[in-house]
């Protein structure tokens, strides 16, 4: 059965192939091999669009934050002309990082090694003790900090690509924007903001384990059974008879879509004064009552989990960024996001809701991390070497570039690996 299905999918002639990633299974080497990890950094993280931060984190001129683009340290900064830059955090002289703080506000970045100063747009002011540099050898304009050649944003989410050319951010995002819009449109002002701190955790396993897991509707009833025992959610949401869906949206993006179930929880609010007020406000801003009701009933990322290929997820009340460190070590940042125009009581409720399940001491997060550690250990076994993503293969609905399955199907993961193959595979 497996073989037939695989043949049906790979016999398209031009589909890219890879010895370790097949349409419904992935070899353990894809999670362990050092050389493959280096290729992933080069061909995925240092090439495609990768999330670097949110505009609200650098709201004012001079604001900056440091993060990673793949493995490379970068600074997201806003200059005095309000332009956003993604600068390589590396002195152009002798390589030291020029910015140590996680975030702050500064006109300049100063390398502590030999004192070189850079403006927050990356330009070198001048080398220190400049009389030692002869203009014949040294042109300061050639020693600006490295810059990501392409930076673009969608609804405040800032992405960078280290490839000078390629598809636009909009093309890359494709149909996942539908879900990003539902998320952000729900906020009273139609914006979200970060700045409420972070949760940080790490695990002894490959980065792809977390990318797979954030849109996996098969695991909650098992991994999170202890949480579900103490929650109103219960086991129906991700049970075999759930009406929720899991979708691969194309370009590796995916969604775990349980809006139909959230709508049942939210719908009674439509008949209450606060609910009607919210829909009225949404209608005023969005200009369409039907759309306003759709946005309200979806409940934002209370109603679905988003994966934006390769390493960004929007889930619950958080933006989650997955940082590959080594083939078998990964760091994850969770940024709770708040609704623009929300009351302080709403903000507090979102933070408490986030903490209940997520983060290093949440009611669910540590159980996922425990499983990543166990997968990491199990993958040392030789002779049984494939991880299988076969569930629901025969009941996928094709919808343009997207494919839909049952909430518990491995449709999102198959979609993730189709994009992985596009970037990593070899065409026949």
């Amino acid at each position: 059965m497996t073989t037939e299905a695989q043949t049906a999918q790979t016999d398209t002639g031009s589909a890219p192939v890879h010895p370790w990633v097949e349409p419904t299974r992935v070899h353990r080497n894809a999670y362990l091999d050092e050389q493959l990890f280096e290729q992933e950094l080069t061909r995925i993280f240092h090439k495609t669009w990768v999330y670097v931060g949110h505009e609200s984190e650098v709201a004012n001129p001079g604001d900056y934050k440091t993060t990673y683009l793949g493995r490379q340290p970068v600074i997201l900064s806003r200059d005095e002309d309000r332009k956003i830059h993604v600068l390589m955090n590396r002195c152009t002289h002798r390589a030291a990082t020029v910015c140590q703080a996680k975030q702050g506000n500064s006109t300049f970045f100063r390398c502590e090694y030999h004192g070189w100063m850079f403006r927050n747009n990356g330009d070198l002011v001048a080398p220190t003790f400049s009389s030692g540099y002869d203009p014949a050898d040294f042109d300061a304009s050639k020693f600006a900090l490295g810059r990501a050649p392409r930076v673009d944003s969608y609804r405040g989410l800032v992405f960078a690509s280290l490839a000078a050319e390629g598809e636009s951010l909009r093309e890359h995002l494709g149909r996942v924007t539908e879900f990003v819009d539902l998320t952000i449109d729900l906020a009273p002002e139609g914006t979200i903001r970060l700045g409420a701190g972070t949760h940080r955790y790490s695990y002894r396993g490959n980065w792809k384990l977390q990318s797979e897991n954030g849109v996996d509707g098969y695991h909650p009833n098992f991994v999170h059974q202890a949480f579900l025992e103490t929650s109103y959610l219960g086991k129906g949401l991700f049970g075999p008879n759930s009406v929720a869906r899991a979708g691969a949206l194309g370009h590796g993006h995916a969604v775990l879509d349980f809006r139909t179930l959230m709508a049942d929880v939210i719908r009674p609010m439509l008949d209450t004064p606060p609910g009607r007020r919210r829909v009225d406000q949404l209608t005023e801003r969005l200009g369409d009552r039907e759309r306003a009701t759709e946005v309200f009933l979806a409940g934002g990322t209370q109603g679905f989990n988003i994966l934006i290929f390769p390493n960004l997820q929007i889930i619950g009340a958080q933006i989650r960024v997955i940082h590959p460190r080594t083939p078998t070590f990964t760091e994850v940042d969770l940024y709770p996001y708040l609704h623009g125009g929300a009351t302080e009581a709403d903000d507090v409720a979102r933070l408490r809701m986030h903490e209940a399940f997520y983060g290093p001491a949440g009611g669910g997060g540590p159980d996922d991390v425990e499983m990543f550690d166990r997968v990491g250990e199990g993958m040392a076994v030789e002779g049984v070497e494939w991880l299988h993503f076969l569930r629901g293969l025969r009941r996928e609905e094709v919808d343009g570039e997207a494919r839909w399955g049952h909430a518990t199907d491995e449709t999102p993961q198959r979609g993730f690996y189709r994009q992985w193959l596009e970037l990593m595979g070899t065409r026949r």
Partner: protein
Amino acid sequence: MTDLDQSPARQAAITRAQAEEFLHHEAELLDAGRHREWLALFAEDAIYWVPSNEPDNDPNQHVSIIYDTLALLGDRITRYELGRVVQEIPSRTLHLFGNVQVVDPAPDVAPDLVEIRCGLALYEVHGQRNVTYPAHCRYLLRAEGGGWRIVLKKVAFLGNDQYFQSLAFVF
């Protein structure tokens, strides 16, 4: 003369020896896995707070690693007792409290509370992991029913801006 409006008269007092006795008892309950008895140390209106990123911030504006009411703390213990996934192998812990100080509470602290500050060296063994978590702690206690009840317990990990593997044990 003390202006009572500015500085409410303290109605409660605790000695350092009493504070240490209380903390040693708490450590004993936690390290022996007697979590239900530990939960009984908390007052009805208690908050158990583990700040994230910084030793102190406004929990209404900033995410916390833990910000539990008594009910949520009870759920935490229920999950622990279920023994699933991360708790399939229970953590073993050792709590060492030191540098115990009884301090004058801040002006906004209710007059029936006492304040303790102390250091904590928390050792956890879980599966292959053997980790030390140093922390600064702050307690607000209230005398209730012949003993002290915790109204606020704050554990500010020195490393709370770094990456944690997981903090699934009850601490």
